[in-house]
């Protein structure tokens, strides 16, 4: 907003940039050594105001004109003003990625941000869900999101400045589209060319008739009055009702883009969308798909960045000793910010994946020792002894310019060492005191940072339960390969944990990630519980601390962006080209107020009446009274509803169960209320 490109300003930023050049280069080197494969990152030094602007714009420098950026900016400023809201980093998913460093950060903060950003950039590049957006185009083409958003910004700005188009109309249209930004098919590869099935016949019919009407050379007025669209539609109807789509369509934005119209209040009927309206719809849809990957992997992505930031900053000493306290303080604040924040949840889960994989690797070896089976393992194996043996050799633990010669002689396998770097270090070309990791390989670093021997994970190996042992041991072949524990442990693959991390970051999203790795052990250890609302007391109460309950409740918040699934069931409903949406009911009802408001917006994008089938839970007052007296929770009744908006009023009517039965899923249950709750 305020581009104060004074010389002084530029020189100051230049100076900071120079100072950060080495950390940026070395962070990339370290990240690569650790096995990360980030997109190139361009770093920018910006001031506080510029940071606030970027945050308001969702991390990019230019966005289409819209009031909500103003709202976010306003909020950002107020947060900054009234303490707290210190902005640390922004990185956007792009190739090359762009990251922004605030000039007022301490050098320790900057390094933390840089390491964090490198991990994010790796995630953008390697996670398959991010790939969905890019692979719709030629593979070699770059993501270039910044360019896309800039293009959208310019196009929309042009529409807004067009004297033929009312600026407020454009903004309103954007608002309508944004109401549906989560109603896309985020599990599909993004296609710009829309492929939404519709009635092929309709188009032909429309065209034929339109042509014939043209031949009659009637005045527009007569055509409008006599042969209006309703007439055309009635005619189509006589040919037999056309029902489309064939399968329910989740991509509402695409559907209205292809088959929607706008409502013309003067003519009191639907008319074709303007060119600009369709164009804006396209742009909003593209942006929705672009940001979808971020929304779908928030926990994983933030956890991933926090995990590698911690590995680099703390374990590998990327922060200097003098900077470390500063950094630790920052990290503690980020991770501790209350409740289930995606940073701490994500990081804890990644550590859990690493630890369990490493533990399984160790156990598989121990179970192959003669005389050890899943039944007796915990009795015959001395876990303290095992852990001592898993400790990395002292030479690897502490590498200095004085000790590098020991590396080659001691019991350090060749594959752990980067011999080329070691040579350079001996010649003094590499500052090994500062960057000891330079002389190690991925394998060496994995050994050096082996998770099971870290202080915070000391009890992890011992905590293995009988079930897991049985699961691993029961189907293990070749179970007497080693004669001793020592022999078995010598064969342990120390990169197993990290290897697994990289696999998981490629193929998972938050839902699958939580589903697979949120275990009983994890939930119990972190005191998680579910809560539910009681109709009898009118407030929320703790409902359950059972792991499966916590997990399904949590998954509900991540599945489909934590939103109910809505799909198009009929684009020619009532045989009058009305839209019929269905809410795929999973046992949790819609917020009906918001649903109704959303329907009104969809009406603007469809131009004709819109309908929504849903299922609600109803409890009658009498039952509530009775339940209150008996300290029980009243039974709710499920009732099908059809909500309809015709441009003027909203009507809601009860429908028979068989009308909505197809929408109701009977294999899920997100209710975690215990039987004798509140008794």
């Amino acid at each position, binding site marked *: 907003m305020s581009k104060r490109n004074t010389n002084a300003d530029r020189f100051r930023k230049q100076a900071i940039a120079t100072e950060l050049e080495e950390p940026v280069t070395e962070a990339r080197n370290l990240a690569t050594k650790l096995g990360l494969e980030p997109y190139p990152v361009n770093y920018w030094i910006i001031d506080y105001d510029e940071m606030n602007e970027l945050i308001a714009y969702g991390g990019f420098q230019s966005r289409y004109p819209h009031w909500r950026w103003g709202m976010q*900016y306003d909020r950002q400023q107020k947060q900054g003003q009234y303490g707290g809201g210190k902005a640390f980093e922004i990185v956007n998913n792009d190739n090359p990625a762009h990251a922004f460093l605030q000039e007022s950060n301490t050098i320790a903060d900057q390094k933390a941000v840089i390491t964090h950003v490198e991990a994010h950039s790796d995630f953008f590049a390697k996670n398959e869900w991010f790939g969905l957006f890019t692979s719709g185009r030629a593979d070699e083409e770059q993501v270039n999101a910044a360019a896309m958003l800039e293009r959208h910004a310019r196009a929309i700005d042009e529409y807004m400045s067009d004297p033929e188009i009312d600026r407020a109309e454009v903004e309103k249209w954007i608002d309508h589209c944004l109401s549906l930004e989560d109603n896309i098919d985020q599990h599909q590869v993004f296609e710009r060319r829309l492929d939404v099935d519709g009635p092929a016949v309709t188009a032909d019919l429309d065209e034929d008739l339109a042509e014939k009407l043209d031949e009659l050379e009637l005045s527009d007025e007569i055509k409008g009055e006599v042969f209006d669209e309703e007439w055309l539609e009635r005619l189509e109807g006589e040919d037999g009702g056309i029902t489309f789509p064939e399968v329910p369509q989740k991509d509402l934005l695409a559907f209205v883009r292809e088959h929607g119209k706008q409502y013309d209040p003067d003519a009191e009927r639907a008319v074709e969308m303007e060119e600009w309206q369709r164009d804006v719809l396209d742009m909003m849809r593209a942006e929705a798909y672009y940001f979808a990957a971020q929304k779908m992997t928030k926990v994983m992505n933030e956890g991933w960045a926090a995990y590698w930031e911690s590995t680099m900053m703390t374990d590998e000493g990327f922060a200097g000793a003098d900077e470390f306290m500063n950094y630790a303080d920052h990290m503690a604040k980020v991770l501790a910010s209350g409740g289930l924040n995606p940073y701490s949840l994500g990081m804890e889960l990644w550590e859990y994946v690493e630890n369990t994989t490493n533990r399984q690797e160790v156990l598989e070896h121990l179970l192959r020792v003669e005389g050890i089976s899943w039944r007796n393992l915990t009795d015959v194996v001395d876990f303290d002894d095992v852990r001592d043996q898993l400790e990395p050799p002292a030479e690897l633990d502490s590498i200095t310019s004085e000790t590098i010669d020991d590396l080659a002689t001691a019991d350090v396998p060749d594959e752990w060492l980067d011999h080329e770097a070691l040579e350079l270090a001996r010649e003094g070309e590499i500052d090994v005191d500062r960057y000891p990791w330079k002389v190690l390989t991925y394998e060496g670093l994995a050994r050096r940072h082996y998770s099971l021997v870290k202080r915070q994970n000391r009890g992890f190996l011992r905590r293995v339960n009988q079930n897991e042992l049985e699961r691993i041991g029961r189907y293990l072949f070749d179970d007497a390969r080693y004669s001793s524990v020592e022999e078995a442990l010598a064969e342990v693959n120390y990169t197993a944990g990290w290897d697994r991390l990289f696999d998981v970051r490629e193929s998972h999203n938050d839902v699958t990630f939580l589903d697979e790795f949120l275990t009983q052990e994890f939930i119990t250890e972190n005191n998680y519980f*579910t809560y539910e609302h009681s109709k009898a007391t009118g407030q*929320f109460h*703790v409902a359950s601390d059972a792991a499966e309950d916590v997990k399904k409740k949590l998954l509900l918040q991540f599945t489909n962006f*934590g939103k109910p699934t809505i799909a198009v069931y009929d684009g020619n409903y009532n045989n009058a080209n009305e839209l019929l949406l269905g809410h795929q009911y999973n046992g949790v009802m*819609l917020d009906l107020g918001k649903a109704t408001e959303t329907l009104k917006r969809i009406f603007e994008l469809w131009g004709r009446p819109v309908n929504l089938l849903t299922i609600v839970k109803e409890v009658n007052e009498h039952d509530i009274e009775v339940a209150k007296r008996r300290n029980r929770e009243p039974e709710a009744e499920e009732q099908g509803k059809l909500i309809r908006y015709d441009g003027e009023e909203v009507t809601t009517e009860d429908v028979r169960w068989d009308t909505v039965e197809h929408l109701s899923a009977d294999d899920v249950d997100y209710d975690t209320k215990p039987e004798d709750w509140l008794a």
Partner: protein
Amino acid sequence: MGLRDDLERFREVGEQRREDLADFIQYGELGSGRPDQINIPVKIVSLPEFEYDQRDQGGVGQGEDGTPQPGQPVGQPQPQPGDGDEDGEPGEEGGEHEYYEMDPEEFAEELDEELGLDLEPKGKRVIEEKEGPFTDLTRTGPDSTLDFERMFKEGLKRKLAMDFDEEFLKELCKVEGITPRDVFEWARNENIPVSMAWVEEAYSDVPESERGTWSSISEVEANVERESVQQQIQREGIKHVPFRREDERYRYPEIIEEKEKNVVVVNIRDVSGSMREKKRELVERTFTPLDWYLQGKYDNAEFVYIAHDAEAWAVERDDFFGIRSGGGTKISSAYELAAELLEEYPWSDWNRYVFAAGDSENSSNDTEERVIPMMEQIPANLHAYVETQPSGNAINATHAEELERHFGTDADDVAIAYVNDADDVTDAIYEILSTESESDE
């Protein structure tokens, strides 16, 4: 394009979408109630989307020391990791809604519009005299203030009144056998402002050869077109406008007395034991917007707060709505104190509003014997009593009733309003504020 525009648009959009004023008064968070600042929540944080019903959805929490027991209430749900979508900047949470800030002037304006009020505050104390626009006129003055436009118009009017169709009269003089007296008399009949002397001169100017051109007056009328003065001016232009000294006017400035619109508002509240939480809240809901409104309407507003049970005492605003005491109720005590405190605000200089609220309970005969006479004695733009009686079953609560019996329902300086729940608040406010504006008409 750019954030500054976006910010401006946000403010505009926020203005449009802030909570409806009537809803806000009845059910909204009135805030700390500072009379100079009004925060109205703006409901635009998110555009509508398909979402789960939050209650039906439930959630996941994390215990601090161990896991809490099932059944334990959890208060407000904790923020969930899936919440606050978009790009997941930390610290994006919080800020449930934005506030739209209004100043009292805007509030008063909006309330006028919303409730259809029209209260014109009266100016009282004269604070200065100043020269207004040059709209008064005098017959003498410096040349530069001569109202030439007026003089020209007057001259033109005179010309229109005096001029006549000379050509036609000259033709008339050519009628066979006509005398100047005939012409003059005909002209007078036609209301043509001509003098006998002019006619005689015109008659003698007619050459002998043209005498008898017309045989009769009606022949002239039939053949010579008459021209009105306006037509003549249009044809010839104004050659001469007769300016006269008597038309000269000189403009001089008006003297305007600037009166300050001062208001003092006395808020009286029954704080006795029968005024329970709900009643107290209703008083606050009614009084606070009234204070804002008057603050916005007047240049200078002072507030006096009086709490009373059987006795009355003056309090600060911050304490006013919170006080509870045990004693009985004697409403006249408050009016006595009000009369005393109002001495500082003489009626000649100040507009006065005296608002009292309570549940109509009063000690016996106090209303009739003391309160009503006091209300009649204390000069004010408006006396109002707000009865809050949410329980609706008080037996000896007749204060409002007695007032109404005495003053009637259409008194123009006494208003009685009943507030039984939040829905009644705007009606009560309307009742009170419209009482005075009606009297203005």
